[in-house]
């Protein structure tokens, strides 16, 4: 069957067997091997991708079912080759990863959470990654990474020295006027972390 998908913003097509999962199609037909194959029956979350922006398990969907949808994989997270997203960077900084097998799924689950909630509490973070198994970290640093990323994204638009960042404050500064820089997130985060967050 022919499937047409938008993957990380690019229109792609492939000829796949009906029984091929979206996970296998991403890895084999589109060579996007950042999406990891763990249990292949919906238990571990390693294969998490975003389907039309919502996190879902790519092993629990056939590629033909996904025809026409917008898929975001871990390869679509970084702003440019060789760079990291704010969330990926926070995972490095807090040691939110060891072997890295669960990491793409964790990052996408975190991305979906932070796209909806700018100040998630610990319970909301834990709930958002409750379907993702990590066998290395013990989860503590992953939760820490997501909280750190949330804080950075939340405060990224606040001009320094003008107003101290406040937890729970609106994501966009209501006083900032028309030119509140929606795309300024990465610049501000970069300013925070001259070496991408690592020493």
């Amino acid at each position, binding site marked *: *069957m022919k499937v047409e998908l938008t993957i990380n913003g690019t229109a792609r097509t492939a000829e796949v067997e009906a029984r091929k*999962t979206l996970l296998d199609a991403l890895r084999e037909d589109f060579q996007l091997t950042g999406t990891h194959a763990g249990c292949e029956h919906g238990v571990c979350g390693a294969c*998490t991708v975003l389907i039309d922006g919502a996190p879902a398990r790519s092993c629990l969907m056939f590629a*033909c*079912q996904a025809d026409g949808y917008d898929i975001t994989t871990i390869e679509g997270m970084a702003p440019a080759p060789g760079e990291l997203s704010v969330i990926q960077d926070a995972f490095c900084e807090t040691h939110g990863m060891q072997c890295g097998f669960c990491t793409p799924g964790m990052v996408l689950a975190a991305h979906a959470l932070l796209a909806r909630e700018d100040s998630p509490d610990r319970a909301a973070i834990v709930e958002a990654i409750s379907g993702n198994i990590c066998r290395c970290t013990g989860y503590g640093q992953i939760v820490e990474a997501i909280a750190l990323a949330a804080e950075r994204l939340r405060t990224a638009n606040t001009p320094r020295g003008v107003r101290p960042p406040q937890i729970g404050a609106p994501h966009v500064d209501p006083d900032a006027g028309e030119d509140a820089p929606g795309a300024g997130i990465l610049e501000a985060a970069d300013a925070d972390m001259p070496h991408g967050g690592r020493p």
Partner: protein
Amino acid sequence: MKPAPFRYVRPTTLGEACAVLAAEEDARVIAGGQTLVPMLAMRLARPSTLVDIARMPGLSGIARDGDVLVIGATTRQVEAERSALVARDLPLLAAALPWVGHPPTRTRGTVGGSCANADPSAEIPLVAVTLDAEIVVEDESGPMPMLADDFFIGPMITAVPPSGILTAVRFPVWDEARIGAAFHEISARRSDFAFVSAAAQVARDAEGRCTRIALGIGGVGDRPVKLDVSGLIGTALDAATVAAAVHAAAAALEATSDLHASADYRRRVAVTLGARAIADAAANIQAKEGGR
């Protein structure tokens, strides 16, 4: 973990979908696929054809119809979870949905799919039975509504005819002014299959007396069941009275034993969780504008 080969079709009308099901004995309907796909992956199911209804027009959405809230079969669980209508009209369903699977399965899993799958420990079927919802099944001969209690026959067994498709679940909305609901379950780990689950919805008058009550228990037997605690109507729902009523009602429960929990354990936990659900529902009462 690769499914056996099958044919895939995505019909755009109910008639076409029913025709495929009628023509092929081993054809199966797929919507969210969050339970079916693992079964295919483990080759516990080998359908000849998958009939995808996830995007069929007219099967998705949440709407009020008189004193009923109608949830279309392919409405995703996350949509119901975030729905203002569900939060206002079906507090019990709103309380149960966060227990269904995990966030990334609720984005694909559907309300109708959970009912059609009929896992004895599933949350949405339990809410349907507790609130006396009607489940609508359609085939060539048209829509056939049936009471949830008649729809669920046993583990993964429902009254859907071979060429029928579940199209909607109709949940009665309580019109009392002060309603509360609570949902509890015990499982090995968060969001895993429940050994026992309890769902309660309660209405109280201005003096705090119970005017209406529904209690359901899931996971204990081979299908969700409603317990008769109507004796609590007119009481102030004090702890001792509730515990005695739930204890008496639970005597009728048929419980199964398996590797996870014995029948005795399940029955005991059902009493505890049932009483806890009623107590929390009674404490959670929200006053509603325009109710009676």
